[in-house]
């Protein structure tokens, strides 16, 4: 079971990233919990400065941009 956190206050890209994660997880039947983190203090605790941030099992994988779907699937399947 992997733990996915989407870091972002609620801008378009952050919402899209969460949606994309849910799609990828559902389509590839990945066993995962997806969490949206909107609190700035918590976002900052991961040391990122541009949103959206993608954290998988406590590790920052990606920040600042929306990855494309196949890249995201590649990351989530190879944890």
């Amino acid at each position, binding site marked *: 079971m992997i733990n996915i956190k989407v870091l972002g206050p609620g801008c378009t890209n952050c919402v899209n990233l969460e949606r994309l994660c849910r799609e990828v997880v559902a389509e590839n039947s990945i066993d995962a919990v997806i969490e949206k983190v909107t609190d*700035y203090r918590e*976002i*900052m*605790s*991961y040391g990122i*400065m*541009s*949103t959206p941030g993608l954290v998988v099992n406590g590790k920052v994988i990606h*920040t*600042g941009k929306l990855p494309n779907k196949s890249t995201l699937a590649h990351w989530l399947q190879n944890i």
Partner: protein
Amino acid sequence: MILNRKYYYLWLLLVPAWLFFYLSLQSLTDLIIFGLIKLPKDSHLTNSISFFLFEVPKVLLLLILIVFVVGIIRSYFSPERTRKMLGDKKLFMGNVLGSMLGIVTPFCSCSAIPLFLGFVEAGVPLGVTFSFLIAAPMINEVAVVLLFGLFGWKTALIYMSSGLFIAMFSGFVIGKLKLERFVEDWVYQVKAGNSVIMEEDKITFAKRISYGVDEVKEIVGKVWIYVVLGIAVGAGIHGYVPENFMVGLMGKGVWWSVPAAVLIGIPMYSNSAGIIPIVQALLEKGAALGTVLAFMMSVIGLSLPETIILKKVLKLPLIFTFVGVVGVGIIIVGYLFNFIF
């Protein structure tokens, strides 16, 4: 994956194709106008259509090239690296550097707060942080390319240099005023985790190209419609609305037009492409250049949604100072250019 990346070099092959199209635009337009649809020479409609057919691909081509190049440049400047560069800078030099980094660091207004927190945490002076935050949205490649393509290099250069000036000046003033106490208290307690610096140096060049291509897809995909609209406005109203329609309201002789344009522009928000059709219409109809640029800057650089976001980290006196100082800077620039031109 590796093969996949190599293939990005193929995008560079498009550069000669780009050059060919750009250089032959005028003859292609003539071919379509007079060869294919056989419009009469020198009629008003022909002029409008040929202006439109020439300008739209021209500006879009410029936009694609510049966004691509800027995208590659941006891949060298992550916010994390910018923060490191600004961490030990004093006022003035810090303001100069902060404003310039504001142009090249990838930035979207939704990241303004994490960025602000990250800067404060790393000890970047408040004034320097503001220089960055003012320059980042106001001066961007889209605004500069559109001004260059539609109004010439002088207008683009004026916009860019005065935007830089405003960012440096406002950041410097805010730094001098020592307003640190008006930053929300919790900001100083934020403990940022070890930042995961993407190792910019180790990114392959193919990866940077792919970053540039992504930027083109994202940005040009979003703004092309405004380019088309802006040029359509230029082609359409030409001759239909009296040439000096705006002179009485926004012409050089109207002294209050600059502050009025800024006051109207501050609460408004638009991206730099969306404002272009309006700028086009105003300039075409006799509004003064300084007044129009002041309006454009206040719409892009200052906005109600942005100040509401900043309210999370700044107390009201600092927000008002920020809007006030930047507003005054824009007004000075507006008067200056109305005076010069």
